[in-house]
């Protein structure tokens, strides 16, 4: 933070065509080079943690599913997992497999969305349209499962609410086959296209040591060669599917894009494997205990590690629920990786950490005008 007298300040945001949600970054630039960045977060807050304390705990499931639009089912599963720990419920194995399958479907949908938006941020609009057209296969699959294209809403505390019968399982396998064929059509553009590489290789460098010290999560840190992924802890059915995280060593936007593309293939493989291995059994387990005590639960969202801390006291209300979503720890690495680059690179670098600002929690206090 040296002397800033002769520097121009460019405000990026809160509205920008490349940003899905509002965030403001104040750039101090010297000619074309970025010297300093200051974040200004705080535009989207809905008081969710306070609302969780006021509602009774079984309705909070519906509230938590609506924290983020894209990664909704994993938020719901994390909340349900937290309550299951607080009430000592053991989820049946079939329900764990079903939750895993649907979490991977959500991850597919999110990564395909990001790949399309990234292509558009670079300027490659037809690739964006093609990727989103293939994303429709996943959305129609979600609609056939429970009726909405994005909000699956199949989680319940203690299991899942519906089962997958023979016909639906067959449809999943067919659609995964179709999707894989379509993704093969354009994935080579990401791997080998010269224009794409020109725009992303060597931009937004996050060295390995910095990634660890700044606490990055998700594909941001996996693009720097560190195999950090919550799914290795084996929650839900990941322990039985033999999961290994995907890493690339480039430390730049290109590797982060490749990490997400490889995760698309990995998700398709996991869904197929889980459907073939689906065991029999009940799909929900109910018991008669209120949430009591302290528990923490972490899962892997498409953007990184989400952390829920909950405290119950044996009544219908939770005393405290703290939610830390993955984009929040990804902001300090973002500030670090922007320094030294040019102004024209800002949209792609900001986009490469997959910002989902609506997940983060801030406060907006509204006063009625007198």
């Amino acid at each position, binding site marked *: 933070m040296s002397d800033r007298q002769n520097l121009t300040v460019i405000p990026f945001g809160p509205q920008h065509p490349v940003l899905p949600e509002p965030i403001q970054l104040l750039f101090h630039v010297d000619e074309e080079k970025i010297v300093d960045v200051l*974040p*200004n*977060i*705080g*535009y989207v*807050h809905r*008081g969710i943690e*306070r*609302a969780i304390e*006021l*509602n*009774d705990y*079984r*309705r909070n499931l519906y509230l938590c599913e609506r924290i983020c639009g894209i990664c909704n089912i994993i938020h719901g599963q994390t909340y349900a997992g937290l309550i299951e*720990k607080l009430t000592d419920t053991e989820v049946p194995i079939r329900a764990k497999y079903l939750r895993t399958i649907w979490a991977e479907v959500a991850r597919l949908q999110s990564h395909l969305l990001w790949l399309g938006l990234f292509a558009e941020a670079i300027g490659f609009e037809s690739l964006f349209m093609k990727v989103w057209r293939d994303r429709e296969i996943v959305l129609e699959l979600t609609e056939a499962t429970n009726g909405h294209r994005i909000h699956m809403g199949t989680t319940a505390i*203690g*299991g899942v609410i519906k089962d997958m019968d023979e016909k639906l399982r067959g449809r999943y396998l067919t659609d995964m086959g179709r999707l894989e064929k379509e993704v093969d059509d354009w994935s080579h553009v990401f791997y080998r296209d010269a224009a794409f590489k020109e725009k992303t290789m060597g931009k937004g460098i996050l060295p390995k040591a910095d990634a*660890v*010290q*700044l*606490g990055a999560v998700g594909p941001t840190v996996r693009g720097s060669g560190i195999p950090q992924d919550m799914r290795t*802890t*084996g*929650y839900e059915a990941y322990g039985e599917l033999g999961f290994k995280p995907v890493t690339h060593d480039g430390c730049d936007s290109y590797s982060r894009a490749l990490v997400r593309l490889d995760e698309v293939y990995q998700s398709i493989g996991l869904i197929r494997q889980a459907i073939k291995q689906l065991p029999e059994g*009940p799909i*929900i*387990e*109910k018991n*008669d*205990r*209120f949430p009591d*005590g*302290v*528990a*923490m*639960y*972490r899962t892997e969202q498409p953007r990184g*590690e989400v*952390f829920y*801390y909950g*405290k119950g006291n044996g009544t*219908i*209300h939770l*005393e*405290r629920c*703290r939610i*830390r979503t993955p984009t*929040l*720890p990804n*902001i*300090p690495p973002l500030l670090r990786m922007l320094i030294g680059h040019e102004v024209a690179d800002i949209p792609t670098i900001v986009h490469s950490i997959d910002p989902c600002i609506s997940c983060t*929690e*801030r*406060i*907006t*206090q*509204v*006063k*009625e*005008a007198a």
Partner: protein
Amino acid sequence: MQATETGTTYENMVPMDGLLQKVRELKQRGARFITTTLRDLGETMEVIHHFEVDGHVENVYLKLRKGEPIQSITPEYPVAFIAENEARDLFQVEFKDLALDLGGKMLRVATSPSTLLKPAEGPRPPIMRKLGPCREECPAMVNIPRYIREVDAGDYEAAYNTIIDRAPIPAILGRVCFAPCQDGCRQVFEAKPIQIRLLKRVAADGFREKNGGLVRSVQRKPATGKRVAVIGGGPAGVSAAYYLGMLGHSVTLYEKSGTLGGAMAWGIPKYRLPKDLMAEELNARLTEAGAETRLNTEVTDMDRLMEEGYDAAFIATGAGKCNDLRCKGEDSEGVITFIDLLTAVNIRNETPDLGRRVAVIGGGNSAMDAARTARRLGAEEVTVYYRRQEEEMPASVHELSGAIEEDVNFDFLSSQIIIHPGKPLTIEFQPMIPGEPDDSGRRRPVPMEGLSHMVEVDTIISAIGYFSVVPQGFKVEVSRHGTIVIDDDLKTSREGVYAGGDIAYGTSNVISALRDGRKAASSIDRYLGGEGLDEPEPDMSEFVSRQANLDEIRARDQAPIPEMEAYERVQSFAEFELLLDRCSAACEAGRCWRCDWNE
């Protein structure tokens, strides 16, 4: 599951000055900072820093007074600045040594003339727990959903105790109650209400088998030193005696005849309610309550009773006078009242010979009881004559269908005009047509003038209702119907004297009398300086969840009532309704929708 359990207790509590030391230790172990949680506890603040180390989560706890500045951990973990800035703006606390200060930009204040955002006030969705429609239909408010769950789990003792909390004679009720709860069950829409009465009997008989009797080992409350007299040994009297005894009072029960039970003893036939079981249960309750019973003692003078040193009295003498047939020749030989017949059969165990043809006049449960008793005494042609239509009969459906199965004939819309004495007797009946509805909603029968038919019978049983007579010596206010006048607390016009059951409300049923007994016990206890008994309230702290397999439950059928065959039944007075077996009982109890859920 994964090992995130470390640090879920307050073992990692550090004082304020030890915080940086602890954080440095964690940094040396290679910990990664996750986030910070703050909690406002009124006077104090609780601060929790979450770290991930060695693959699991560890928490560092701090407790400090409000207003005290918190040591920031940004000197060790600069990335914590976002979490700490947010905490600072949300909770208005100060952080010392905060590395990057975002200048209060986290808290945004927006002023807007018309805004859809409203500050959260309190829990908006209604958090309620209902009692359950079955429980609300029961006059005594027995906790039906709870004891059905206990029968489902096989815990008959708990179910027995749940029922006794509000109605003290489950074994008797499981056989004789008219079960208004079953008509209130929500599954009556699908024509399969839960067989609540059968489950009650399963609980009582199951407890009796396991316990070797019906006497429980229960503690009475400490003795209050007050004495209460209960006049009448029927359901209302025994119920009041039980609850008053359990509250610690010293109770004396006076019964005019030689058996306890009142209308249950003489009125309900032996094939419905075996008398030894009835006596066993009534005596069990009185033993548990420590009450003294004085049989064959009639009380007619209230002043003399109170002089014996009682602090309060409860009148539950019931009803015992039969309504007149109001036709010529009703006192001919061979015309008997149902009270006389049933008392002879049920209490004195006689088997009077009624001849071959019997006419029963009346349409209620007493008429059914009289007719079916007549069949068992050997009468071959038993006909019930009722002046209204079949659907307007006050008798319960399963009594009526049982009577039809036992070859009882019915003649509707016939009213008696004259009885000609002789052997055999001849009755002249007049046919009626339904006219305008009267106050009870049923259509008043209008005689068809000039028409009549004659019937020859050996015995006529009159069963058109009964009423109560209050002795003058009680010195209480009596209404024009012959019942004692009471207020909402069952208090009569005389100080310290309460009344309930048939004598106060006119002829009703067993479960209403049990309710009156409990209510009077509560009022008397309050009159004598106690707190009374509690009223049913939905308990939000009890957790009841709906079953997970509701579709499978909906597909089950209702358990049928297990009974002996009709031809077998009329051979004797043995109890013809059989006990539901354990497996069917669990299946039927599992069908309950748990309308009082609170999950």
